[in-house]
């Protein structure tokens, strides 16, 4: 049967919003998209660019699962408009590993059992990366404060902290 029982009707938006063309450097590659200004960066990454490593947990700026690096600093990508990233650099969890090697932070999470369900892990790792770029030898206390914007509902915080300290040590050794 070729005729359909259902035909979608296109609603015209009440106000005419021009689509914006943005080019964002994502994990080292320029990505161009036409987007509505209300699109959130987390949704552009996940749905638009299919980079589903960035997770949306709470969608209310609390949990930090959507943390990505914006020009090198960690941000909650559910709380930034994608259009604001135009011309800027974004790094997601997909940008951590090379095809052959895990990033020391990823290795740390593996070695120290830094994840249980893994939902918070991408955000934790990006927050940890931002910390280690500023401070390559953090104390346990400094790690805890730096990750205070990221929630783990498995409450596996002990091992997450250990994982970051493990990574810090490895990265210091590698940079020698």
């Amino acid at each position: 049967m070729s005729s359909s029982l259902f035909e979608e009707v296109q609603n015209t938006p009440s106000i005419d919003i021009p689509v914006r063309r943005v080019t964002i450097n994502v994990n080292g590659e320029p990505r161009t998209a036409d987007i509505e200004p209300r699109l959130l960066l987390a949704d552009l990454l996940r749905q638009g660019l299919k980079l589903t490593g960035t997770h949306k947990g709470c969608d209310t700026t609390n949990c930090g699962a959507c943390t990505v690096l914006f020009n090198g600093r960690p941000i909650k990508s559910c709380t930034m408009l994608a259009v604001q990233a135009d011309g800027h650099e974004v790094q997601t969890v997909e940008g951590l590993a090379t095809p052959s090697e895990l990033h020391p932070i990823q290795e740390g999470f593996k070695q120290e059992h830094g994840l249980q369900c893994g939902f918070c892990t991408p955000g934790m790792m990006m927050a940890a990366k931002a910390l280690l770029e500023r401070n390559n030898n953090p104390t346990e206390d400094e790690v805890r404060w730096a990750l205070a914007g990221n929630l783990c509902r498995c409450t596996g915080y002990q091992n997450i902290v250990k994982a970051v300290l493990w990574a810090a040590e490895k990265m210091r050794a590698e940079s020698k």
Partner: protein
Amino acid sequence: MYPSRFAYESPKTLEEAIAILDAANGDAKILAGGQSLVPMLKLRFAFPEKIVDINNIPGLNHITFDADGTLHIGALVRHEELEFSAEIAKKQPTIAAAAPLVADPIVRTRGTFVGSVCHADPQGDWAAAMIALGGHIVIQGPKGKRTVEMKDFVLGPYTNALNYNEIAIEAVIPAPQGAAKGGYLKLERRVGDFATASVAVALDMDGAKVLRAGIALAGVGGKTIDANDAASFLVGKDLTEANINEVADLVAAKAEPKSDHRGSSDYKRQIVRTFVKRILSANATQKAA
């Protein structure tokens, strides 16, 4: 969650931004750090027709001290820039103490000092710090600049003194008379929660003697509590234990806490009393050293 539809503008100059706001006739919102506005857009508490993103306007991200010690904080200064500023750590103890306690570390990379003040959340840390410090806000509009004292800037919860065609371009903290001392303490159930109680203390000291004292409270009332009258008890006095206890009682009496899941009203008042004592005692010890 999606915000409702809006048009987006990213002007490159203040003049351009003000012209856009003026033309929008009250239907536009200014976007700086977005850490309050974007959640409000998503929850559809706010549904402006137009967003005016000021992040691409140069000249708004300065933290500068004039020769006399007056501090200027531009509209795009993020919380973490204050947290990591060596100059702030050295010269402005109230702001240095509050900065690491604002929201959480990820939010602090984006959210701005001036934006937080404009948001006028009664729980806001910076509003309390600004009132204790006797700061003011510099506002630019179509007719030029004007200045509004912090105590007059917030008209009520989430309501500030800006006209629809004006932008708060910087916060100014006056030069201290003598040495700038002070501190900030906040009790929260966990990082990022609303404060159970917070206390901002700003002192100008000449040796052991207090020349000016400002104290403000957040989390213990429907608005930021201005306890500067109570704090003025310290003016001309030393930070002795008796004086500290006296002013702590006077300030605690100013709090208007409500009992809720964060604690009873008596408990919150006691936290205020304790925090005032702790900050003042720490400053009394510092000057002896």
